[in-house]
């Protein structure tokens, strides 16, 4: 029932805002409520990750949004509409739902699994077929190869892709994901996370994502809600802010060691000021003596040798230049390099392997500059300073 939910027309956003007000879930025969007076606004088109220890109520909270768990009290609106007044089944047809191990129907083919919700919405067959194909393309599964397969003929990662395709099939403005990548191996999980980010950049859904993996939360979330007992909100902020300045000991404990290292995964080389003052030498043309002179003038000891297309080739020390006729063989080859899209974590890795400066290259491998450890440390220092003021 996507039609029944308001969809903001803001460019690139097809999601709807979700508001929870004093939402409480109390199970009969239990002393304490599972979720107590939970209030939160989840902005349209953003990924909000609920993260917290097992049993903290994060899944229960998420499941109240599509009323898989009926709230005991409180108000939930999706795109301004009261979710509790709609028929629960119809409400759920307008909300994508992806769970751990995908929950694919084993006796349905991949195509049939994806077609379930459009079928429930009574789309005509042609429209469903077209949509199934579109969805399979979207999640990177070739329809010709996979449409007629049964779930058990797929790998875990492929099943999870189908799960996401099924959740998105009716183009719901809101997507709920309950540890969807919890049961796949780390490499596949990383790929699925990248895929989800790519999808989200195209689709702009409102996504509520539950995980107990803080690193996953940092990678995927526009905002992270760290939840404690009875789903109490410990901190609700951007990953950046939570890493730089955890609100309390619970959050700090959850962030764990290495907050600064995690921070590095959030920033990309293009966001920082890297060095562009290297002494350069284009291998085929310049004489070693001229390069040595340039180095002395600049007060440096290393020059970077490029090829004719400006691609970095070797680092040359000034001492190696003495008595050489040309630059084609001297120096140490450039090893690890990073692109402007690389994270600062990748950059740090390259800096450590290169033992000083790492080369930053553009899309065609051409030199843009270099980055060193001082760049990285000053970025971290800046972020800490920036968030030092905003106590939660």
């Amino acid at each position, binding site marked *: 029932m996507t039609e029944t939910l308001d969809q903001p027309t803001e460019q690139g956003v097809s999601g709807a805002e979700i508001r929870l007000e004093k939402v409480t879930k109390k199970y009969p025969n239990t002393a304490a409520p599972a979720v107590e007076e939970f209030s939160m606004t989840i902005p349209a088109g953003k990924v909000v990750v609920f993260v917290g220890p097992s049993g903290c109520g994060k899944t229960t909270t998420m499941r109240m949004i599509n009323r898989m768990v009926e709230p005991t009290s409180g108000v939930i609106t999706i795109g301004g509409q009261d979710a509790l007044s709609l028929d629960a089944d119809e409400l759920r047809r307008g909300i994508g739902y992806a769970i751990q*191990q995908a929950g694919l129907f084993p006796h349905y083919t991949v195509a049939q699994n994806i077609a*379930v919700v459009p079928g429930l919405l009574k789309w005509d067959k042609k429209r469903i077929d077209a949509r199934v194909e579109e969805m399979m393309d979207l999640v*990177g599964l070739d329809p010709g190869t996979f449409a007629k397969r049964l779930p058990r003929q*797929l*790998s875990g990662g492929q099943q999870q892709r189908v799960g996401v395709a099924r959740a998105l099939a009716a183009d719901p403005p809101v997507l709920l994901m309950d540890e969807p990548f919890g049961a796949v191996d780390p490499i596949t999980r990383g*790929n699925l996370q990248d895929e989800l980010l790519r999808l989200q950049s195209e689709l702009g859904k409102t996504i509520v994502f539950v995980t107990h993996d803080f690193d996953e939360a940092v990678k995927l979330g526009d905002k992270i809600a760290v939840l404690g007992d009875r789903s109490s909100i410990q901190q609700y902020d951007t990953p950046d802010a939570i890493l730089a300045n955890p609100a309390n000991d619970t959050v700090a404990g959850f962030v764990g060691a290495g907050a600064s290292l995690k921070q590095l995964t959030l920033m990309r080389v293009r966001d920082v000021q890297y060095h562009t003052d290297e002494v350069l030498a284009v291998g085929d043309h310049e004489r070693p003596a001229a390069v040595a002179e340039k180095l002395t003038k600049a007060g440096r000891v290393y020059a970077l040798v490029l090829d004719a297309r400006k691609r970095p080739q070797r680092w040359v020390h000034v001492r190696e230049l003495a008595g050489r006729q040309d630059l084609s063989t001297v120096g140490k080859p450039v090893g690890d390099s990073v692109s402007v899209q690389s994270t600062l974590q990748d950059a740090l890795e390259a800096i450590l392997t290169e033992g000083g400066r790492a080369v930053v290259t553009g899309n065609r491998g051409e030199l843009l500059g270099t980055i060193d450890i001082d760049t990285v440390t000053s970025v971290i220092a800046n972020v800490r300073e920036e968030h030092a003021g905003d106590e939660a």
Partner: protein
Amino acid sequence: MTAVAEGLAGISETRSFEEKPSVARRSDRIRLFIQPIAVVVIVAAVLTWVLAGDLNANESETLNLPTILTLTGQHILITLVVSVLVVVIAVPLGIALTRPALKWLSPVFLAIANIGQAAPALGVIVLFFLWTGIEGLWAVSIPLIFYTLLPVLRNTMVGIQQVDRSLIDAGRGIGMSASGVLFKVELPLAVPLILAGLRTALVLAVGTATLAFFVNGGGLGELIDTGYKLQLNSVMYVGAVLAIGLALLVDWLGGMAEVWLSPKGASE
């Protein structure tokens, strides 16, 4: 589609498409192939041997094609009535007893069905006859329903209960109604077990239908009975072999139904 996705899809395609059937499954397949042939060959051999041989007057009175066909027909009819009614009663009952509202009743019904199966079939048939005084088809069918209910009832319940909870959660979560999940997910996935229960029930029914002659229900038991009373071994042979052949054939049909009616992908 990104290059990463393409690469991934390519790599994981190495996962084998056809899984190797287990030894049990292979033996099942061989059995499904050999069983009907064996039945036909043995029954044909015995019938030719008996019918082609010299029969005395007593023997030829029972051992003629019309009589044999009639008795076999009666036997099949009893089996058919019992199995149809068992399915009609036990499957809906089994479904009802797995619904949250009626779950508390399931021990009661399972106990009744257990008692039904534990009691000797002949005792149940005779008791039912003594109570009601009816004879013939229904006098044997109704007690046999009681006797053969358990496998179908229990397997329907277990079949539905063993459906992965996460599938039901997923179904409800994407907006399927409770009945939608029942009919499109739970029941189809329970079909293999329900059919296995039905196969057991069928074999029980076809076997115990040989007792129908006690209450004038006819069936192949009558051949055995006549042969015993009149000391005609040939008649007993034919009755026994036909009863066994019919049971094996029914079991084979049940096996075929399991193979052909189970949804693909439902079992490991």
